[in-house]
């Protein structure tokens, strides 16, 4: 698979690899994908008092495109409020990374990971 420089940079030196404490009520966690399908993304966000994402972490099982998509989206959501973060679409990720069509599902998974992590944070903090 011939990947762009953007993919290779994030595969070789990904920022934001790691985990946050899921017991912290300011942390939202998502796990999307399935091992049997060949990709799983675990994505976590910490939301500060101002409602902005102050930290984002990921761990990914998958190909280079899956790793790069999850790394990129954690970079992008950092410092954004939840609505802005939800506004990032898989097409933006796919385009920035120049993903080939067969790898488009990796960017879909990254978008889904962000929206589920936000939902998890909101569910935790409801009522």
């Amino acid at each position, binding site marked *: 698979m011939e990947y762009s420089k953007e993919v290779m940079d994030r595969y070789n030196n990904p920022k934001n690899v790691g985990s946050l404490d899921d017991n912290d009520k300011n942390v939202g966690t998502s796990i999307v994908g399935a*091992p049997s399908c*060949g990709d799983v993304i*675990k994505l976590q966000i910490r939301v500060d008092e101002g409602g902005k994402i102050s930290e984002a972490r990921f761990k*990914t*099982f998958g*190909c280079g*495109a899956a790793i790069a998509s999850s790394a990129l989206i954690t970079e992008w959501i950092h410092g954004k409020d939840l609505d802005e973060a939800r506004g990032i679409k898989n097409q933006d990720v796919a385009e920035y990374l120049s993903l080939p069509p*067969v*790898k488009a*599902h990796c960017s879909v998974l990254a978008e889904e990971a962000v929206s589920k992590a936000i939902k998890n944070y909101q569910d935790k903090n409801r009522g």
Partner: protein
Amino acid sequence: MTRSIYMDYQATTPCDKRVLEEMLPYFCDHFGNPHSISHAMGAQAKEAVEKARSQVSDLIGAADPKEIIFTSGATESNNLAIQGVAHFYKEKGNRIITSEIEHKCVLEAFQAMEREGFDVIRIPVLKNGIIDLQILEEAVNERTILVSVMTVNNEIGTIQPIDEISEICRKKSALFHTDAAQAVGKIKVDASKVDLMSISGHKIYGPKGVGALYVRLKPRVRLSPIFFGGGQERGMRSGTLPTPLCVGLGRACEIARQEMDSENVRLVELKSYFLKKIFDSLEKVYLNGDTEHGIPGCINLSFDGIEGESIMLGMPEVCVSSGSACTSDSLEPSYVLKAISVREDLAHSSLRIGFGRFTTFEEVEYASSKMIEVVNRLRSMSPLWQ
């Protein structure tokens, strides 16, 4: 980046320089048409082709060099054998049998025959990749005209019990074809056990674009040709023979025959060293296929918790392949690994590492160290690895 380390010998092999040297005179100097035997130039080319035919014949233990038909490669040989037998013997019977782990060209040829109305049976394999002989025996009946089972699998390297399959076929007078593209030149094969055998040039350090089909003479196996034309190759494969390619295949077979035993000793040592180092350094790495009934140059491993393509990406200088869906255009992982009941996530986690004639100890040392480093790094990033 360091020089590329080639460890994908099941995909293709480099052409041996001794093979190339033998071929070169037949491009520009001895260029005669081997079928124009009434003049000196044609006769010279014919002689070269016939020498090559004998060299192929000697390697596989054919009774007569005439039993070797030159083709463009194993894909054509497999298609000619399967379509040719099915069409020629269709009055005799309707059933044709193969296994679930054949090369795509065999599976697709069977599918095409199925569309024509043939009764196609696909025999499953056991967890070690060996065909289920009991199911095969039950499937072969009086209406069976062909059984096609590969000698060595291209992904996991397992060797099928050719003698036993042969016996089952002969009891019911079904013809037995074997795709031996991954076997010829690597292990001893015996043409007397089969009726048809496919051979590839570029898997045995010969040129690409040439192969052969062994077609038994006694008792005679008949084929309907796929190509129509001048009736070359006993009417089974029309078309002017590519003299340099035939010469190359012949020389490649000769070298393989002479060096097979010593080469296998070397490859077994490299494989043992590699596996010991990997298993000593990494947990939860699994060998796919059979440890005893496998060719020494093929290693298929699954690395729990990480995906195959991502490993390849971390060591681009090491040329291997993966059974992961992510390295193919489909979204399905390897059907061979599925057939041997490898867990789906582990199929995505697989790498095929192939050693061959030009693999050195230094290369094995470097590739294994690099692989361990990349696997550890990716596992530290994986949500499935705690």
